[in-house]
């Protein structure tokens, strides 16, 4: 006789929410790396790349915020971790937006503030993602 343990499958995150959130790290990280490349090479194309990557990061982070706010109304997103996650994501977006404005300055005028902000925003995006994805484990309780 075989005993089956029937654990209820529980989503850690809605797939769409997960995609938006997962997109933020590579986009903001890409921007930070492009900024570093610009700082070393003075090749302006890197700063163009980084401006668009930041714009993309803002779109993804923005949609993730919307998803998180919707998630908060459900059981899965509640609790202290949910709050920290949302706060981190909001900080990512706000500083990311300021960074987009800094990157709109012509040529070297975006430096060094643009690079500093890109690094901070990347770290924030990583933190938000880390907190959210480690928030709940399949079938497990915290």
């Amino acid at each position, binding site marked *: 006789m075989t005993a089956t343990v029937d654990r209820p499958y529980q989503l850690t995150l809605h797939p769409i929410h997960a995609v938006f959130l997962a997109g933020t790290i590579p986009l903001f990280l890409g921007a930070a790396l492009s900024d570093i490349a610009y700082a070393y090479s*003075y090749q302006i194309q890197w700063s*163009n790349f980084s401006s668009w990557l930041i714009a993309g990061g803002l779109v993804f982070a923005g949609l993730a915020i919307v998803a998180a706010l919707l998630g908060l109304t459900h059981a899965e997103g509640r609790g202290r971790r949910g709050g920290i996650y949302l706060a981190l994501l909001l900080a990512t977006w706000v500083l990311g937006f300021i960074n987009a404005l800094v990157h709109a300055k*012509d040529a070297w005028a975006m430096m060094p503030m643009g690079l*500093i*902000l890109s690094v901070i925003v990347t770290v924030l995006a990583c933190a938000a993602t880390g907190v959210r994805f480690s928030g709940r484990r399949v079938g497990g309780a915290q």
Partner: protein
Amino acid sequence: MNSPSLVSILAVSVMLSACSDNDQASVKYGPEPTLPEQQRGLLPNMTIAEPALWGDQLPTVPQNYRITAIATDLKIPRQTLLLPNGDILVAEGRGGNASKLKPKDVIAGYIKAQGNTSVKGGNRLTLLRDSDNDGTYEEQVVFAEDLNAPYGLALVGNKLYVANQDALVRFDYQEGQTRASGPPVKVTDLPSEINHHWTKPLAASTDGRYLYVGIGSNSNITERGMEAEVDRAMIWQIDAETGAHKPYATGVRNPTALTIQPGTNRLWAVANERDELGQDLVPDYLTSVREGGFYGWPYSYWGQNVDPRVRPQNPAKVAEAIAPDYALGAHVAALGVDFSSESMGVDFADGVFVGEHGSWNRKDPVGYKVVFVPFSNGRPSGEPVDFVSGFRGEDGKTRGRPVGVTVDPRGALIIADDLSNTVWRVTPTQ
């Protein structure tokens, strides 16, 4: 997350956007303008002209002068040329094919378009004729078409030169002609890749041997890369016969109009300087052009004031940069220049007229008028005086934007207005 640095970043940003210069003692015009600290908040200052129709209104002119619209419904008139028989040629068009590189370009392009005409550029020359000398130009005919954003115009003998945005071309011209006899002949190609600043002003030396063409930079301050700036931000001297050319002066960010000073035969230019260093930086200028002179762009402005936005920097070039002769004020966007003559009346006989298209990158708009810079002994000798104003009304609406100015030796100033698509004529009434 390092919150102290975050706070300081925000604080710095707020400070940057909050600070503004209210220095009343600052000198805006002349040979030694006050150059305030460089300043750029998180958002650049922008105030876009809100276009409106003239209706019954007219631009304002000094007492004892009269202004009339001598041609309307043009297709973006830019520069004008007086022909020996009194006919006026008008170059019409809009150029540039700069791609949008950053999200900023997409947004700024949209905003700036709000302050310009929505008419499509004519890519043609229109001829205006006043046969009976009554000040009404009853004939308005197309002299030549299928040009490519024509701007600079010059007549040397029976040759009419037109600076398209991509080439200097030549028509044969007979006095009295109202239509070009055929397509133009190319004298030489002009730098036209990207063409961020596309206007190609033109002047001919008094003996007709050389033509001078201004070529604007391909960016505000190298944000399209140094490679895009080859053969840009300079004035070429072109052999009229052969088309052979050399840089005559360099480092002139955007030379927008050129003219030859009567008597001295020296080349003069108005040029537009760089943006996003503050509301009162950097002054646009009027200057005599020194052969071989380097005027700073992109490395420095107004002589040797280093622009930190340019990398790699070039201290050797900064050291050789010369300051222009006369500041017209920051962001006025001088687009036209011509020397006056006795026929303009005693108060405006010795000096230059400058057409100021007007600012878009300043909280309090400036320009939007034609000023007169008085001269004595061949040099600028005082503050600019408003000659034609009222293009931007008290109501904050903009009805016109002056571009090219041309003095008719018979006693008139011809002004091209590329917002209302009008050519204005100002004459002394006595």
